[in-house]
């Protein structure tokens, strides 16, 4: 069995990472880049070999390996075990291939940074963690990778830690995803306790299908996991961290915050789709959230001026599509879109990085302009990416993947309550509008950046090492879609076929009523759906041309400050909302209670004891009040209001003795 290759796949970047961290000072910039890219490249090679082996195998069994038993006790059994099936194959290919290209790019891009070893250390560690995540066959193991990528994301966002804004952004990303992670952990615990202490994915899924898990458990677990996935994938209401995460170096944004990590949520749900399909309400929630997110993010992207932020919002929006697909039940489409999105979004980020590097780290699109002449190659690559993102019909990969989603949503229906369902038409309409908006904002970007006169000085050339990945990715963004095409055009279904074993396993297992809304192919969908899906981006492009393509000088805002803008602001509005409702109160309360209240109480009690002892002193020194006239002085501890009379101690003591005698006699006589 080629299972042994799986740990090797992970080990390679992991070893590179360890070496990079340990010998950070002794490794040259060049060596660091070489080591990192080499290790990821090696993984890419292995994953290709694995792909070959997996696809050419005769039976339908996935490759599996159990490294060791993490723990086995009476009621718990968790393994460090990996599994390669078509779903994870897709993911490792994306991670290693795109990752390799990005590393290659970064080797040049970051060459001048003094912290390059740390950078590549984190990057390779990220790749390793991501591979753990996608390969894990035990949800516990998956969770290790899940948190690991979050950590790397944190480290890379805050890579330039000298600027407090960057570290703040990094922390924000980590905190928000941590909230999701905690929810996910709860989901895992719920599954684990209900499913007999094992988180083996196959075990969980079979428990779902055999009805071992009650529906409430399934719904609860699905909800918890969904929250985790939403946070990781920056969906409503967790979307605020991703735009800020652009504070990291651009290759990071490309790899982590566009191509791979943020899609981990999608991957998780695709992995566990049987669990989710058994929870229709959660599916509906997922779809609606995805739809809302894609609309909201697209609108927000429309009014952004920062190039990377536009891309970030577009990432959120595209992830929204994937969640819509997942919510609809067509996880294959979601995965397909994930792949194409990885290509074109990585391309867009890398080109954006190339652009930004050339214009002296200016990220405001309105300060760029006229770049086409200075860097036609980059512009071409960007254009390719933009078209793929917009989903221009026929020639781009984005079109096919988006089309697959749209055509499936139309016939679906989403359960809201027993006997009440939400029609797929509505969501389809929204998604179509989203497609229009996508084309609008990305071509707004294109039209502002490239034509016209340069606004800022442009220097240097894009190095070849950076250009090669761009070219590769551009090719993939355009051609990557041909593996899966709608029947209406050419019936090519390489992708879904590849995933077939996994899908077969699922559809066989799921009870009929749970899959009522699932439609894998668009066969039953009307033709005009395809047409509409093709027209919407083109329309977006046209409108963008009308608005920004011809007009000079540059318009700085979207025309008509009305509804659309306020809607568009929603994206950043949530941020402010959270700040006011969560962050500031938390900070204030924490500040308020920075001195331990309980400590104060107990120390206060201690002080009271001392006061009490003062009282005993007063008894000693005090007087019957009858002894003699004396100077009445307040004690320094005025609160006791005890007075000290200049009196005779001897008689006072004697009086106590006699009083004690009287009391003792009385008590004895009354006994």
């Amino acid at each position, binding site marked *: 069995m080629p299972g042994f290759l799986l740990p090797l796949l992970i080990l390679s970047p992991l070893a590179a990472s360890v070496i990079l961290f340990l010998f950070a000072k002794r490794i040259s910039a060049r060596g660091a880049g070489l080591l990192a890219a080499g290790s990821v490249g090696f993984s890419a090679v292995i994953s290709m070999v694995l792909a070959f082996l997996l696809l050419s195998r005769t039976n339908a069994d996935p490759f599996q390996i159990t490294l060791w038993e993490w723990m086995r006790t009476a009621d718990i059994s968790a393994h460090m075990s990996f599994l390669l099936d078509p779903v994870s194959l897709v993911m490792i290919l994306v991670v290693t291939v795109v990752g390799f290209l990005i590393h290659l790019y970064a080797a040049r891009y970051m060459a001048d940074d003094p912290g390059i070893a740390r950078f590549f250390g984190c990057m390779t560690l990220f790749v390793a963690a991501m591979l753990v995540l996608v390969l894990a066959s035990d949800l516990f193991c998956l969770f290790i990778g899940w948190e690991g990528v979050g950590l790397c994301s944190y480290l890379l966002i805050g890579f330039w830690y000298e600027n407090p804004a960057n570290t703040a952004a990094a922390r924000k990303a980590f905190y928000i995803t941590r909230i999701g992670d905690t929810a996910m952990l709860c989901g895992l615990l719920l599954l684990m306790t209900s499913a007999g202490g094992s988180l083996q994915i196959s075990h969980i899924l079979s428990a779902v299908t055999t009805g071992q898990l009650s529906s409430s458990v399934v719904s609860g677990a699905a909800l918890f996991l969904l929250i985790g996935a939403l946070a990781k994938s920056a969906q409503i209401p967790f979307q605020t961290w991703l735009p800020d995460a652009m504070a990291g170096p651009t290759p990071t944004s490309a790899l982590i915050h566009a191509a791979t990590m943020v899609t981990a949520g999608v991957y998780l749900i695709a992995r566990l789709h049987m669990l989710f399909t058994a929870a229709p309400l959660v599916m509906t929630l997922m779809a609606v959230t995805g739809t809302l997110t894609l609309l909201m993010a697209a609108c927000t992207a429309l009014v952004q001026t920062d190039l990377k932020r536009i891309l970030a919002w577009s990432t959120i929006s595209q992830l929204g599509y994937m969640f819509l697909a997942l919510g609809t039940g067509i996880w294959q489409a979601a995965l397909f879109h994930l792949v194409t999105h990885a290509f074109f979004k990585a391309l867009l980020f890398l080109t954006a990085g190339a652009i930004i590097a050339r214009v002296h780290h200016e990220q405001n699109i309105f300060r760029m302009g006229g770049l086409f002449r200075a860097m036609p190659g980059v512009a071409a690559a960007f254009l390719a990416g933009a078209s793929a993102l917009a989903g221009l019909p026929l020639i781009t990969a984005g079109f096919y993947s988006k089309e697959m989603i749209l055509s499936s949503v139309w016939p679906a229906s989403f359960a809201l309550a027993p006997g009440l369902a939400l029609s797929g038409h509505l969501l389809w309409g929204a998604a179509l509008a989203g497609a229009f908006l996508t084309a609008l904002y990305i071509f707004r970007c294109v039209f502002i950046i490239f034509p016209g006169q340069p606004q800022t000085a442009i220097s240097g050339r894009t190095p070849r090492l950076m250009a090669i990945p761009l070219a590769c990715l551009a090719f993939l963004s355009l051609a990557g879609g041909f593996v899966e095409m709608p029947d209406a055009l050419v019936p090519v279904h390489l992708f879904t076929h590849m995933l077939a074993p996994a899908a077969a396993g699922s559809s066989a297992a799921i009870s009929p009523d749970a899959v009522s809304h699932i439609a894998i192919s668009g066969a039953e969908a009307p033709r005009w759906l395809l047409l509409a899906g093709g027209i919407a981006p083109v329309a977006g492009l046209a409108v963008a041309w009308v608005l920004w393509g011809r007009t000079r000088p540059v318009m700085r805002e979207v025309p008509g400050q009305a509804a659309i803008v306020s809607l568009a602001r929603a994206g950043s509005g949530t941020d402010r909302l959270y700040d006011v409702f969560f962050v500031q109160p938390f900070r204030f309360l924490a500040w308020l209670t920075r001195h331990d209240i309980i400590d104060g109480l107990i120390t206060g009690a201690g002080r009271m004891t001392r006061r009490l002892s003062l009282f005993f002193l007063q008894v000693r020194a005090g007087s019957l009040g009858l002894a003699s006239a004396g100077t009445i002085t307040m004690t320094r*501890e005025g609160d006791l209001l005890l007075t*000290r009379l200049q009196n*005779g*101690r001897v008689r006072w003591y004697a009086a106590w003795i006699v009083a004690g005698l009287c009391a003792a006699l009385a008590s004895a006589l009354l006994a």
Partner: protein
Amino acid sequence: MSVLSLSDALLLAALLFATGLAGVLVRRDLLFMLMSLDIMLNAAALVFVAAGARWHDASGQVMFLMILALAASETAAGLAIILCLHARGRPSLDADTGNLLPGNLRSGNPLSGNPQPGNLQRG
């Protein structure tokens, strides 16, 4: 031949004891305190003598003798202390004034013999 019964004697002794006690508590002059103590001791002696008579036992009177010895040495020591205090220039034999041993209420130089009121606590 006695005309006093034990309980009569005890009655007298109790009254005498209380009187002496009141003297110790009320008087401030050391001399008077010593005299009051003597009265109390006598009350105790009376009890012993009366009880000895009651039981027809000489031990009571032996005890009386011991009390006498105690009274003598206590009075002697007490008067020596009075003289000592007097010699140190205490304005009077007031048992109350000039407390050099105010304990925690001490303030200022203990040798000055002039405590200032009001300082409850040092440090």
